[in-house]
């Protein structure tokens, strides 16, 4: 339990830093100096002290949505193992709750976007809804496939059932982490699905949904999106623990190393790719699903 509390607290504190790290690396790759790694913290602190401005036609949905977003994301984060630590929330079937709690966040995010009554937010909301439908199967094809093969249904147990002494499992991990990476890009609205730094409202997904928010509301949205990015990073890193060593220090070292590699990869991907056309994104996601199906094939052939 103590380990769990420590891990959730570290997720809550480190999440903005991860985003800052990715941005810094991205700036370096594109030949700029870039903002300091701690910039997200400064941004959050600045937002906290700003006045909240709501759109004229907004309702109670706009008021509760940022809070629900943060709560849902924090609950989801509490289910994830960091290092070899046992998460706070862990029970048989929590993999389902994990996916559906993030669904709760999405539901209210979309509603809050539509609450503004502007077409910009509408476009973002429609895209979010459409792409989320294709993202959901990817999650089940990656983490779910291990769950179904091992017969375990708790995220902690699922990750701990992975053993790298088996060649098929290694192939499996490569495939899974690839599709989990694509999932992370989609769910966290990074390039090439969505450009977080664009300035044109028509081409955004996540950013345009929170276009008319400010102050504490925007703080909550931003903070939960940082946590969400970190959640998917943890999902990704968790594939790489089981080298047979069951020590916490090793777990944490692996965690830090993989997170570092992941941030470099994300930065590289964001540097070298351009954003896809909106109508090509479903194809891209179906491609990720197809990778997930590869898991199944591996499984059937090694049976």
């Amino acid at each position: 339990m103590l380990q769990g509390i420590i891990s959730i607290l570290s997720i809550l504190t480190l999440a903005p830093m991860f985003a800052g790290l990715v941005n810094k690396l991205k700036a370096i790759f594109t030949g700029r100096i870039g903002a300091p790694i701690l910039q997200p913290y400064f941004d959050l602190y600045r937002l906290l002290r700003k006045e909240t401005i709501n759109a004229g036609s907004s309702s109670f949905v706009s008021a509760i949505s940022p809070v629900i977003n943060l709560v849902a994301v924090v609950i989801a984060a509490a289910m994830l193992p960091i290092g070899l630590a046992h998460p706070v929330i862990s029970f048989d079937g929590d993999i389902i709750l994990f996916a559906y709690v993030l669904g709760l966040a999405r539901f209210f995010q979309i509603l809050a976007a539509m609450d503004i009554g502007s077409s910009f937010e509408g476009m973002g909301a429609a895209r979010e809804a459409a792409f989320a439908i294709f993202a959901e199967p990817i999650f089940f094809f990656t983490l779910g496939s291990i769950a179904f093969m091992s017969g375990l249904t708790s995220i902690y147990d699922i990750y701990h059932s992975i053993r790298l002494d088996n060649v098929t499992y290694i192939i499996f991990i490569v495939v899974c982490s690839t599709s989990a990476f694509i999932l992370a890009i989609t769910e966290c609205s990074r390039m090439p699905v969505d450009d977080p730094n664009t300035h044109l409202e028509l081409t955004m997904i996540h950013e345009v949904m929170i276009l008319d928010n400010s102050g504490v509301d925007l703080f909550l949205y931003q903070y939960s999106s940082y946590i969400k990015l970190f959640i998917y990073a943890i999902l990704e890193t968790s594939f790489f623990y089981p080298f047979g060593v069951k020590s916490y220090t090793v777990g944490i070292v692996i965690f830090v190393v993989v997170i570092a590699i992941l941030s470099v990869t994300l930065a590289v991907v964001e540097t070298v790719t351009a954003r896809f056309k909106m109508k090509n994104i479903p194809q891209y996601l179906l491609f990720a699903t197809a990778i997930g199906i590869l898991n199944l094939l591996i499984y059937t052939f090694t049976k």
Partner: protein
Amino acid sequence: MELFFYAIVIQFLSVIVIGFLQDNRKASIVTHSLLAVGLLLGFIASFTPLVYSNFPTQNFYFFGIPNNLFRFDTLALYFLCIIQLVAIPLTLYSYPYFKHYIEKGKKVRSTLVFYTLMLVSTQLLVTSNHSILFLIFWEVMSLSAYLGMIFEKEKEEVQNGSFYYFVMSHIVVYLLFIFFFLLHHQTKSWLFSDFHLSPETGSLFIIAYALSLTAFGMKAGFMPFHFWLPRAHPIAPTVFSAFLSGIIIKTGIYGILRTFQFLNPTPEWLGWLMLAVSMISAIFGVWYALAQHDIKKLLAYHSVENIGIIGIGIGIGFIGSAYHSLPIQVLGFGGALLHTLNHAIFKSLLFMGSGVIYQNLGTRNIELMGGLVHRSKYFVMLFLIGSIAISGIPPLNGFISEFVIYNGFFITARVLKNYYPLIMLLSAVGLAFVGGLAVACFTKINSIMFLGSERKEVKHFNVSFYEYLSLGMLALLCIVIGFYPQPFIGIVNKVLTDGFVPATSSSELLNINWSYISLIFGLILFTFVLVYLWKRTFQKKYGRRTADAWGCGYKNLTPRMQYTASSFADELNEISKSVLVYHKNSKPSKKIFPPKEYFESHSEDLVDNKLVLRGYWKFNSVISKIEFLSYTDLRYYIAFILIILTLYSVIAFLWN
């Protein structure tokens, strides 16, 4: 159990009372109060044995005389409870609903009679033990629903839609006749308690299943037979469409579960068939729903989806039965039963909500709504609770039953090994996909109907006390089952041990860590309140104001510039264009100063369009070949009858 029959008598009394009361208003008051009292009594009568006695009385003693016509086993009691649970708020709701029409000067007495008959016959249907009695109540239920449906019979769409329902329910009855005769022929009994057929009977077993699944599946609205739902639900008065979607389609599920009790263990392929059909119903039901603009039609397609989810549970149960595996059956059938309860609750909530909107705005087209949240915040909250529940999102009840079904997938994969994990994984992905589509669909209707600003000016929007009360009751149930599912799980488990799973220790359902899940849901609520208060203090400190939305510097934003439902769903409809029969017609102009442009999009049902209507026209053209036999004079027909009778007797004579 005698209390139940007194309750039924009290409910039925209102039919007689209406006969004596000429005044519509008085008739409505008396009927509704009698119904409310009767239903409440009936609920006490059915709820107490279900909860408190270990194995409720199997047979019914009518004043000391044993009687086989009715049987109160747990399955019957469970469905009885669901019916009454929906009927009580529905009756509260129907009072202001009919009052609205009475004020307009419409005669509602006959419709009230049909409403009462429908409630009474449905309650008797699930408790009857005799097949003929079952068929009679089935027919009374279907016909009273039909007669209630044609309340606004002067409209053409009402005539069309109700005709679909009428024809469909007669095909169902016809198939059920054959089904029950077949069972009678095999078991030499008319009683449900005596019906049993084992798979050794070979083809008879399969034929019986085929008949039952077709008939009950048609009533429930599984995918190839779903076409009547989106036709019949929108045109019925809300009271009827809520009951139709909440309860009457569930009698199909009841029938399938009963059939399973008669005919088990099921062969494995039947489980696969059920799973496949249900999966298709779930996915395409919700996909069709996404393309609809008519709120009630959309909800009707969602019924198809949810019936699909229930069917997935039943399919898992069938597979478990084929392998004689208790845990699989418990989770499969348990999920199906629980989802039946949940769907009855939130679907009637949503239908009643749509009825409130329809009565206030006079339209069912969601593109003409918007901004209702500024009219009635609490109504929107209630509708939102129903929407979250139906999308299967925690912490409400929809999640609980879907969670059980997911666990069914996991347990099937774990117990049966082999290639099962693969197929169960695909099923889980399918269910997750359905969940995603449901989120898209319900965010669409909630945001277009309630949020933003009014697309068409709303003259008045009143929600009466009774409407709030009935919607509130159902919303409360959604919350209670979501946060504290243990007692409901216990009841479902009791139903399973009594009627489905042969062994006694069927605790796979209870083994799920429900208290832990309740705890997490409590935690979600607690953190929500905490963060919300924290946010409020910050807003107090640094201020909060409203301003216009960002419009790229453009100031005169009008309500018509808001995002529409069709554009919201367009991206997804484009993908499934061929299956959905999704049309877009537009006349874009290329002039510099464009004149008025025109765009419309609508979707049609593949089965309805390509199979049913086309088949009907084919049939019609064949039948019209013998039109030359049609005369206006009655005497010709009498002559025809005589000729046919003579022919029959000659054949019969020669045969001997």
